[in-house]
């Protein structure tokens, strides 16, 4: 997609409305069918879910696609008759992707009598939001990779349906040390809660393997130029970089700097690096050695192919114009699975009460999610298993087999 197209998407609101219309059209038939089945429940009050995402501010473009999977799930469920006959209604709140906005938004949702929340996105934003929802006993799934967010004792009402920083760090460290046989590992980290936790995990696993990081560079996400950080890594003699970068502009600056320095060490990082918009800012050769953590079910290698359900999901995404070029982010988002898991728990308990739902969620075992098998215990709210996670190559995004959201696993995985 050209930049001009994306510019249109940037205009707040337009992206959703248009893609919703598409979704609605797609599922219109099913909807009529569902309504018929639900019968008298048509008059039932809608089931309202708080929907926290930025519609203004710096991160609108990066964050909005992450919610499309969730929107798809809502539309699918509503078309099929809703949950126990109640239609799901999304109550939108704009957090501008600012952590400081979250407590106010939770107050707003709480005031509106809402007990279930999707979002926010970003570890800093999420941890800020979770602190408030925990106190208010609201069930929530955020897009927070920080391992802390999956701590069921600390945040008993928050459920993490994505790989966390511990898991990602373990995969990355393993790859660098065992698969690549490297010893001088550098860490490049954005200065966010995600970056902090990911680096802490990385250092932890490196030390476990008896390796000290050769250099740790922390950059502010709003810095106009990141060359200094990259050259610091190079000067430290690093031969592999574990990079915790969650946004494309930063990634572009980093990879372009590497290119201008003619330095191409293996880089592993977060799935956010898969966004095709990176290719608009960086030439493909600059990212040939770059890998991101990803869900096994969405990857292929010489012997294995992606899962059937995932392929079907990819085909569906191809029908939605707004999804184009954001397929990876839509796929890797926890919101699709969360909405379905919520439906599952409600239907299991036949209740919309928070206490009942929490009990059901806490005993989830091998729920078949799009991203992997999801399991929770009252203590462990990090639902994805290590076995479902892998590393995939960024440059395979231009491969035909990618279908938008598929990627080729890193060599040797």
């Amino acid at each position, binding site marked *: 997609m050209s930049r001009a197209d994306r510019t249109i998407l940037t205009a707040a609101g337009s992206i959703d409305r248009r893609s919703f219309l598409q979704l609605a059209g797609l599922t219109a038939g099913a909807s009529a069918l569902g309504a018929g089945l639900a019968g008298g429940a048509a008059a039932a009050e809608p089931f309202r879910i708080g929907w926290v995402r930025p519609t203004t501010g710096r991160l609108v473009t990066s964050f909005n696609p992450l919610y499309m999977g969730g929107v798809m799930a809502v539309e699918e469920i509503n078309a099929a008759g809703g949950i126990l006959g109640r239609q799901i209604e999304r109550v939108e709140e704009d957090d501008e992707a600012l*952590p400081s906005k979250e407590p106010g938004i939770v107050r707003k949702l*709480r*005031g509106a009598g809402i007990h279930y929340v999707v979002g926010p996105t970003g570890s800093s934003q999420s941890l800020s939001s979770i602190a408030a929802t925990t106190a208010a006993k609201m069930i929530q799934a955020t897009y927070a990779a920080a391992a802390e967010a999956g701590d069921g004792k600390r945040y008993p009402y928050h459920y993490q349906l994505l790989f966390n920083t511990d898991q990602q760090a373990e995969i990355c460290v393993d790859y660098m040390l065992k698969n690549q046989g490297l010893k001088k590992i550098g860490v490049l980290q954005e200065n966010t809660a995600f970056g*902090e936790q990911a680096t802490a995990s990385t250092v932890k696993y490196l030390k476990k393997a008896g390796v000290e990081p050769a250099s740790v560079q922390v950059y502010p996400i709003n810095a106009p130029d990141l060359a200094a950080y990259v050259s610091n890594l190079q000067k430290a003699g690093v031969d592999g970089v574990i990079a915790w970068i969650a946004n494309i502009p930063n990634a572009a600056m980093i990879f372009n700097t590497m290119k201008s320095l003619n330095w191409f060490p293996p880089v592993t990082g977060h799935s956010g690096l898969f966004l095709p918009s990176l290719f608009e800012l960086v030439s493909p050769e600059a990212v040939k050695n770059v890998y991101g953590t990803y869900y096994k079910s969405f990857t292929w290698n010489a012997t294995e192919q992606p899962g059937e359900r995932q392929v079907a999901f990819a085909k569906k995404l191809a029908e939605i114009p707004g999804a184009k070029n954001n397929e990876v982010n839509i796929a890797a988002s926890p919101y699709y699975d969360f909405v379905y898991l919520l439906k599952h728990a409600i239907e299991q308990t036949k209740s919309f009460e928070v206490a009942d739902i929490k009990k059901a969620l806490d005993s989830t075992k091998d729920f078949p999610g799009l991203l992997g098998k999801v399991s929770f215990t009252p203590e462990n709210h990090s639902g994805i298993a290590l076995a479902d996670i892998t590393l995939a190559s960024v440059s395979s995004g231009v491969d035909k087999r990618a279908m938008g959201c598929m990627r080729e696993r890193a060599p040797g995985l």
Partner: protein
Amino acid sequence: MAASVAKSRGLAGLLVQAALVVIVLALPLALDPYGYPLFVATQLGVYVIAAIGLNLLAGYAGQVSLGHGAFIAIGAYATALLTVDQGWSFWLAALAGVALSALMGVLMALPSFRLSTWYFAFITLAFAQVFEKMIVEWRGLTKGFAGVVGVQPPSVFGHVLEPAGVYWLVAIIAIIGFWLVNNLVRSRFGRGFVAVRDAPAAAQAAGASPARLKLLAFVIAACFAGVAGAFFAVQKTVVTPDDFTAEFSIFFLLTVVLGGLGTRWGPVVGALVFFLVPELLTGLESWRMMVYGAALLALMLFAPHGLVGAARSLFDRLRPKQAGQTTQPAETVQPQGAHVERPAISGLSLEVKDLRKSFGGVVALGGVDLSVAPGTCAAIVGPNGSGKTTLLNVVGAYYRRDAGAVLLGGRETKGLSPQQIAGEGLGRTFQTPRLLGELTVLDNVLLGAFRRERASLPGTMLRLPGAMAEAERLRAEAMELLAFVGVADRADDLASETPHGHQRLVEIARALMGGARLIMLDEPAAGLSMTELDRLEQLIRRILALGATVVIVEHHLDLVASIASHVTVLDRGVVLASGAPQAVFADAAVMAAYMGERALNEQASDQLSDEAAGEVARPRPVPAKGA
């Protein structure tokens, strides 16, 4: 009649204010205590607290700070980190935050002593930006971008405050803060702030140190910001660097400007409009900032005094004009003030020896000697550019002398600041009157008493009885002095709307109010009408009669001849002649200096020579200057 109108208006104002307080405090009863509106109301209260402080700093003291957000950040971070990480109680943590913020206020004040307004504005903007960067960079302390999460509300007597309790706390602090600052701006400190902003030289002449007043304004503003920051942390429960961007700081200044810089209600109105309107207009979203920008631009162009200023001028326009309010020629009202009794003044002597001053190679004073006995009137005359005003400025320490001695009452003044010299009993007026146009005539006279007033800062802010009694006493004395100089009827007029002739008299009253024992008058007669001139002469005679010493720089030679006992003629920075007026004016060289070499001296001496008495001192020949 006018007084009763004012009183009833004051009463109405009081009622309105009381009603507002009741409404503000009753808000939680009407709103869902856990709901969003109360959340917004609490936040608004926090902003109002910060804006009140900034208004004092930027509005009254004239220090345009674009770094106010940094002070709020200090309060917020200190509170958040000390409560969350260290387990301190909110109250202790908030106190530490306010103290740190005040400390930073002291540091921020330092550049303001040296830099001009907008240079300083830029430095503060840079500071705000750097401060935000440092919050991010010092992530070991501040947790970087992630911020501090989970700030708990304060507890009172072991009772954790619910949202409504936090609201009440914030509201009460905002109301008290409003009251305190109002008391402050109506005190000598407030007059001092305005003087620092509008006429620093007048502040110094009144014995007020601009540097100290700026420092005070900074510290008070920083304390308010620190308090606001503490509640910011509590109210949001999360503190992140994103909250304290340079933009946030700019918004605070814009808030105060929008409301009306240097007006009492400006910060309240500004914060309400700036932060509440977007909550009401959610549809505005990303247009918000552009709309703000455009509104601000329009406001600066069409209503430079903000919303409050615009409302006031609209009110003034709608109100029927009261008779006698407009500026009328000074002649029409003529209280002579001769009947007013004043206590005697023990005049100071002035001794100037070989005083030298040059500006970038141009000699303004080339070794001037002058001696004025206590209780006498000495005049300094000379053509334009001869160094008369420079002499006054060097004596008053507004300029640093290059060499020479200045003895005031026998004491060398070297090293003293202008305000210290004012405190020694040196009063002065300026060639163009330096009055504070936005204050009343009475307030302008009261400014003179800045150094005499003893009431402490807490005393004035809290309106303690001692401070109030002193203020009342000084007010009465200022009225008396206005009567003495003959403009008592103008006491409540704005100085800017007072005729020129009266402004000169007000300046003299201000100097007397400061307890001046030696008054330097710089061309007091310039621009006066005949009758005003007459009154000026009478006034100077009465001041002399009280015992004060007067040094007058003047071109009206006959005024000089009639009141001065000693005349010094300056020409190109040196004393051309000095002695009794009759003798000096009879001197041919003097007339030459005034009217050209082959001057009209025949005529002048014709008239004066009959009475000529005393020797004319001729210190040294005039050095030929030039190519």
